């Protein structure tokens, strides 16, 4: 089909053609960026915490800061032994999707000439890595001697585990085992590497999404908690997923009896699945909203195309009749309107891609968002082409149904 006649017909309806093109362009620009926003939210929500969330829950005690931490741990752990179904438990400073407690900047040298970002420090007592089911992919397990006491923030020298993501950030392409880093006067040496272990606040910490898995695990003895600048009284529990709610309730009751001077933090004492859901609540809402806007936008665009195409069909009834009388088949008429729409959509899409890029520049400037990957542009384009073709199909079929005899009528 030659597009010459279509173009000259469009040229006679410049304004209407321009309007629909602009509408498609704007839709394309918003669509590409909205898709990108949705997919970055979904990516964040899919983050691998590195632990078997379904089997884990937290139990958090507050207001017992005057308690001796080792004694607190002893009392709670003993009380937990009476909870049937509890497979294991251990004291930790926090868990993924819990409250961040140890964000601190680290350096690659003791004088801190090379600042290396702000990872999160997990402090784990004995049994915590097993309770969480963390296994190193390189290096060694912690030995009892690694769990040291301390008077300050951390032991002066610690053997730690870090994640592969952090290792790659600190020493790209190199073997991280045995490497050292510093936090003020505290010295750390990498003993093991974890495939995945999210920080408590993935995506919302200082370095954003990049640092979602910048986690460090420091083995620590409970008596170090006394002086350690980490929150006390958080226990991680493991049980069969089906049994977990009951085990957690029983554990809360047992802990309340064992440590009556503490207040059980009901909101923070929850299955990890629930903590994760709560953590990503706003992202889920935002993604849902974006999808709704995308759908509404496509619908409005489609309705606009239907309306305008219907108008054109009605206006050209006579011409169509003449073409039919001159030998054009129904398919020819159908093709005509489809091609016309394809041309309009293409014009809109080309303009829309420029707008999408411009919009992304604004988003990058005002919302600190990432650059729109080029791969999102064809998605928006394809979708608008499809929507355009579907929207025009109805009016085009109606046009194709116009009999040649119309040409002989006066209107």
């Amino acid at each position, binding site marked *: 089909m030659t597009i010459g006649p279509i173009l000259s017909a469009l040229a006679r309806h410049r304004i209407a053609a321009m309007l629909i093109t602009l509408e498609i362009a704007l839709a394309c620009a918003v669509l590409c960026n909205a898709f990108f926003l949705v997919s970055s939210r979904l990516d964040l929500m899919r983050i691998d915490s590195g632990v078997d969330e379904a089997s884990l829950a937290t139990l958090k005690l507050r207001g017992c800061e005057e308690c001796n931490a080792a004694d607190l741990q002893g009392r709670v752990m003993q009380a937990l032994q009476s909870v049937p179904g509890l497979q294991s438990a251990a004291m930790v400073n926090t868990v993924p999707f819990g409250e961040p407690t140890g964000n601190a900047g680290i350096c690659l040298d003791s004088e801190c000439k090379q600042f290396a970002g702000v990872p999160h420090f997990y402090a784990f007592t004995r049994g915590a890595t097993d309770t969480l089911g963390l296994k190193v992919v390189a290096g060694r397990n912690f030995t009892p001697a690694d769990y040291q006491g301390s008077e300050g923030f951390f032991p002066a020298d610690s053997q730690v585990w870090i994640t592969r993501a952090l290792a790659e950030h600190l020493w790209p392409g190199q073997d991280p085992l045995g490497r050292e880093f510093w936090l003020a006067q505290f010295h750390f040496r990498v003993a093991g590497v974890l495939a995945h272990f999210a920080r408590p606040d993935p995506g919302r910490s200082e370095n954003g999404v990049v640092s979602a898995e910048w986690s460090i695990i420091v083995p620590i003895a409970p008596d170090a908690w006394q*002086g350690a600048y980490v929150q006390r009284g958080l226990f991680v529990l493991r049980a069969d997923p089906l049994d977990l709610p009951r085990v957690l309730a029983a554990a809360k009751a047992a802990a309340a009896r064992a440590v009556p001077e503490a207040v059980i933090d009901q909101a923070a004492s929850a299955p990890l699945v629930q903590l994760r859901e709560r953590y990503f609540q706003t992202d889920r809402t935002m993604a849902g909203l974006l999808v709704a806007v995308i759908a509404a936008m496509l619908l409005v665009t489609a309705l606009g195309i239907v309306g*305008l195409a219907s108008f054109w069909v009605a206006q050209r009834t006579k011409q169509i009749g003449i073409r039919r009388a001159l030998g054009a088949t129904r398919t020819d008429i159908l093709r005509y309107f489809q091609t016309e729409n394809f041309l309009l959509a293409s014009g809109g899409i080309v303009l829309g891609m420029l707008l999408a890029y411009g919009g992304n520049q604004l988003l990058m400037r005002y919302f600190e968002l990432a650059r729109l990957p080029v791969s999102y542009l064809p998605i928006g384009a394809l979708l608008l082409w499809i929507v355009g073709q579907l929207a025009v199909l109805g009016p085009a079929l109606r046009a194709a149904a116009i009999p040649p005899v119309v040409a002989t009528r006066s209107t």
Partner: protein
Amino acid sequence: MFAYYLQLALRGLRRNPVLTGLMVLSIAVGIGAAMTTLTVMHLLSGDPLPGRSQHIFYPQVDASPAGVQNTEPFDMLDYTSAMDLWRAQRADRQALVVNSEIKLRAADSGTNALMSTMLSTHADFFPMFNVPFAHGAGWTAEDDDRHARVAVISADLNDKLFGGGDSVGRILHVRDADLRIVGVLAPWRPSPQYYSVAGGRFAQGDTAGYYAKPADVLAPLSTGLDINDGHFQPMTCWEVPSIPGYLRQSPCVWLQLWVQLDDADKVAAYRRFLDGYVAQQHTLGRIAHVDRTRLRSLMGWLDFNRVVPRDVRLQSWLAVAFLAICLFNTVGLLLAKFLRRGGEIGVRRALGASRGAVFGQLLTEAVVIGLAGGVLGLLLTLAGLWAVRLQPVEYAPLIHLDVAMFAATFALALVASLGAGLFPAMRASRIAPAIQLKSL
């Protein structure tokens, strides 16, 4: 004449109910989306202290050692700087603020202990920020000086612990201390909780927490430091503190100072005072960064912290773009509708209707569509705001449609429909009568 146009418009609209419905719906969803998000934006970005905010300032100095590479001073103050600035008494009113977690119990009630937040501050906090009282009043400057064991509690806490009513004189257990209640606040929900805003530039746009409820207990700073020491959280430290939680001697920032300066001269004088203080501390060797001194106004400080959550700002942009799409759509549909009536318009023109009369009539039709879209859009806005209130975010209870936004909805609907109708009406009114008559 207008009544006649209106009649014609209604008849014209009825003739093509599907197309009319599409246009009304298109405008309605555009307005609904735009007004929902703009209302949230408007409520979250408003002045939390109207009429007073221009007199409220946030002084900042940076006491970190020479090696610390910042372009801006820290968002809070270290203890020494904070106390020096406060003691200097150079402002019309001034108050330090710091939030900390407390364990709390009503002395004479059987309720269990609960964890809550205490705002430690100074007597000036109440008049400076116009804090409303239901019973009693704030404490006095003398109470600040003599570490008085007094407290002001929120309306919420008063309901929870004492079942509402005047509980002035009752005793509150905070940690191991007994505080006598001197005042009960009326319901008070600053939006945002401006006096504790800090660190917005590191929050990745996740600033919904700034709209949380204010603290349940307010107590003099001196008292707070006495009874809750060891439970203060630093905002950040440039060195690891020797004893965590005890921040008075620590290399950490954790306090915020607010000052009231009633006129421009006082603002200028306070700036000079800050510079002088920093210069003096520099010669003493305590402060290394003489250039990192700021005195931002309340609104300036909120802007600097980008208090409106990123998602809310994003949604507003998205909704405005969506409204634009809906309007393009409406323009297209109106154009199609008007031009389709070329015959009718031609007849009217041939019978003597002026171009202006046709234009007026078509524009009336567009405005009727716009108003119908506006009414439906208003309903959608109400539904949208209701949906926002269901969200588990801190600002959800603050969301409502105020008079200004109610009026704005209709104004937007009217402007949008006039804008959308203007061009098609102009175009259609230019139809030459002769050609149309010939084709009839």
